[in-house]
């Protein structure tokens, strides 16, 4: 039986991480895997640090991912990538959206936003796939499609083929935003 694979999606409440994990879950289910996705609802959704777990394989038990267990981290924001870095397995990869969103302690001036995070992460021997998801989303037609751009980039790292992914996107987004999201996925996927 295939060993369980773990993907972590991290970002800031409001960035659309939940839609991202739903698309992933649908694609994995369509591919015939057992799937568990664990989401964060409620208070953290209000601009807090959010984390969503996606796991697939022959038989998945725990819905959560712990330190040292993630094969891939999809980070919607730099600081959040750094925060959850310890969840990555040795040899794992990060899809890194380079967007920077100041948290309240930075806004109030009680602390500074750390510089050079992407470089610090690379120095730890982590494979980093960096992309300006916000610009790509704007190119697709809306800054709100950041999530689908990043899922597109992460999709490339899985062995699930593109058609399955596109069907999953279709299933999860409203019809009137379908074209925009298909474009966003393609830009993230890199074609």
């Amino acid at each position, binding site marked *: 039986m295939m060993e369980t694979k773990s993907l972590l999606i991290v970002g*800031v*409440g*409001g960035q659309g991480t939940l839609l991202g994990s*739903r698309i992933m*879950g649908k694609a994995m*289910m369509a591919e015939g895997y*057992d*799937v*568990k*996705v*664990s*989401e*964060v*609802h*409620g*208070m*953290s*959704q*209000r*601009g*807090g*640090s959010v984390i969503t777990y996606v796991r697939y394989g022959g038989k*998945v*038990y*725990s*819905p*959560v991912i*712990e*330190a*040292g*267990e993630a094969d891939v981290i999809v980070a919607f924001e730099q*600081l*959040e990538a*750094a*925060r959850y*870095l*310890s*969840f*990555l*397995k*040795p040899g794992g990869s990060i899809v890194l959206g380079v967007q920077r969103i*100041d*948290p*309240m*302690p*930075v*806004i*109030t*001036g*009680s*602390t*500074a*936003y*750390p510089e050079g995070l992407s470089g*610090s*992460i690379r120095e*730890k*021997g982590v494979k980093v796939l960096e992309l300006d998801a*916000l610009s790509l989303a704007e190119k697709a037609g809306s*800054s709100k499609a950041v999530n689908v751009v990043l899922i597109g980039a992460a999709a490339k790292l899985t062995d699930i083929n593109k058609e399955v992914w596109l069907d999953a996107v279709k299933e999860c987004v409203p019809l009137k935003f379908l074209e925009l999201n298909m474009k966003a996925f393609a830009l993230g996927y890199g074609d």
Partner: protein
Amino acid sequence: MKKDLLLGNEAVARGLYEAGVRVVSSYPGTPSTEITEAAAKYDELYCEWAPNEKVAMEVASGAAIGGARSFCAMKHVGLNVAADPLFTMSYIGVNAGMVIGVADDPGMHSSQNEQDSRNYAKAAKLPMLEPSDSRECRDFTKLAYQLSEEYDTPVILRLTTRVAHSRSIVDFQERADLPLREYKKDIPKNVMLPAFARPKHVKVEERTEKLIQWAQGSDINQFEDNGAKVGVIAAGTVYQYAKEALGGSVNYLKLGMVYPLPEQLIRDFAKNLEKLYVIEELDDFIETHCLKLGIPVIGKSLFPKCGEYSQKTIRALVLGEEKQSVSLDSDLPMRPPVMCSGCPHRGLFYALKKERVFVSGDIGCYTLGASAPLSAMDTCICMGASVSALHGYNKARGAEAEKSAVAVIGDSTFMHTGLSSLVDIAYNRSNSVTIILDNSITGMTGHQQNPTTGYTIKGDPTSAVDLEALCRAVGISRVTVVDPYDLKAVTRVLREELAAEEPSVIISRRPCALLKYVEAKPALRVEAERCIGCRACMGIGCPSISFRDKKAVIDANQCVGCGVCEGLCPKKAIVGGVE
């Protein structure tokens, strides 16, 4: 048959549909909210948002007595509100089946305490089932109705956040076509006067004995023999963590029914084991039961009583192992949740901060008013407590306190239990100032309608509570409405009402900025040459405003043009429109 990747909560709703349930009444509360939202999508189910959990449970009780399978959902603290009907419905029992969904929140992702609802099952002597994934959420929901009708009892379905908010695969089944059961008047069964309740208590004790026997033979409690000398007893999501961490190296007793607990089954499981772990989040509920049976187990002497577990907890405490990982060495800034850009609560809390008043807080998005830089909250206890606790504070501290203290409560929370507290203020005369934050929706749980919004859960128009008239009707003659985007007006009204020699209500009214019908105005921007870097605009804690190169900057992607920051700038550097 179709299958889908469902949240545990959505799977419970699917179970309600398949079980032929007809009536659902709930009050939203994380992590239980999506059960009722998903149930409302089935046309066959009558669903509603009740003003609070007690009302919801009573609606479900009446429906079950009336012959329809019924359901109510709530978060753990909601069960405290509904505890009154809970204990007596245990005596009355049902006609058609009744199930109570309760979602606990170990780790307090979105709650004010970490109580373990299993204690309610024991205290109210009601059977409680606990699923460990979405498919079990559906299956156990259906089983709960069978048990409810067979044993003449409401059944509690207990979820925890990780089960409620995790998705896993569920195959769909058909809806049972159940006719409405006949209603027969039965005073000794349904009217709990002492003379009728005494024999019912005896029946309840007998029922528990019968359920223990049922638990012994039911496959809801599963014995997994891996030929090991070490055993684990677990239920719910903790079973999944144990399987993840320990795999086939131990024997498992997976309990699907957490009250009443089986006796002989646990004795049989423990026999021949050299070591037996009871792994359970929060209280030592199963452990205590085992110890009462005289079975030595390792439980809370090893595992924590606080917080959420995971496979990591079990790996570390049972195996002494830890996964290798990398991390950055530096301390990173925290990212606490904040009020959204354009949140109508922001202006009001900024004014409260400036006026340096005591703020008796309540449960909702506005509890974030306690966070820096606003830090404008003194207490937050439970739903509705802001108003009554303010009254108590003012009675304790007298006239001076009354001039510098307010309560803040959202529209939905006010309807939940705040109204009876306001009645206390009016009736027992304290010069208290109650501020109702009317954002026209139940916000924190994700936009549910409530009795003030004019719409039902299914989106149909209905009557809306007239808050001004309601407050006047209970005896408050000073009722003022303000727009929280208008800082000057808010401050003026606040001063006037604090000075008044009678109780008053201020309604701070503006719809939640995230509501679909609320149109964002063009983003504001900072004219850099005029900005002197004084940070005055940053005092409101807006996530759209940040500070770069000694100047304030507004993120055009986030700003919704509410204008609250505009008036704070001494140099008029914040302007509308794009450059």
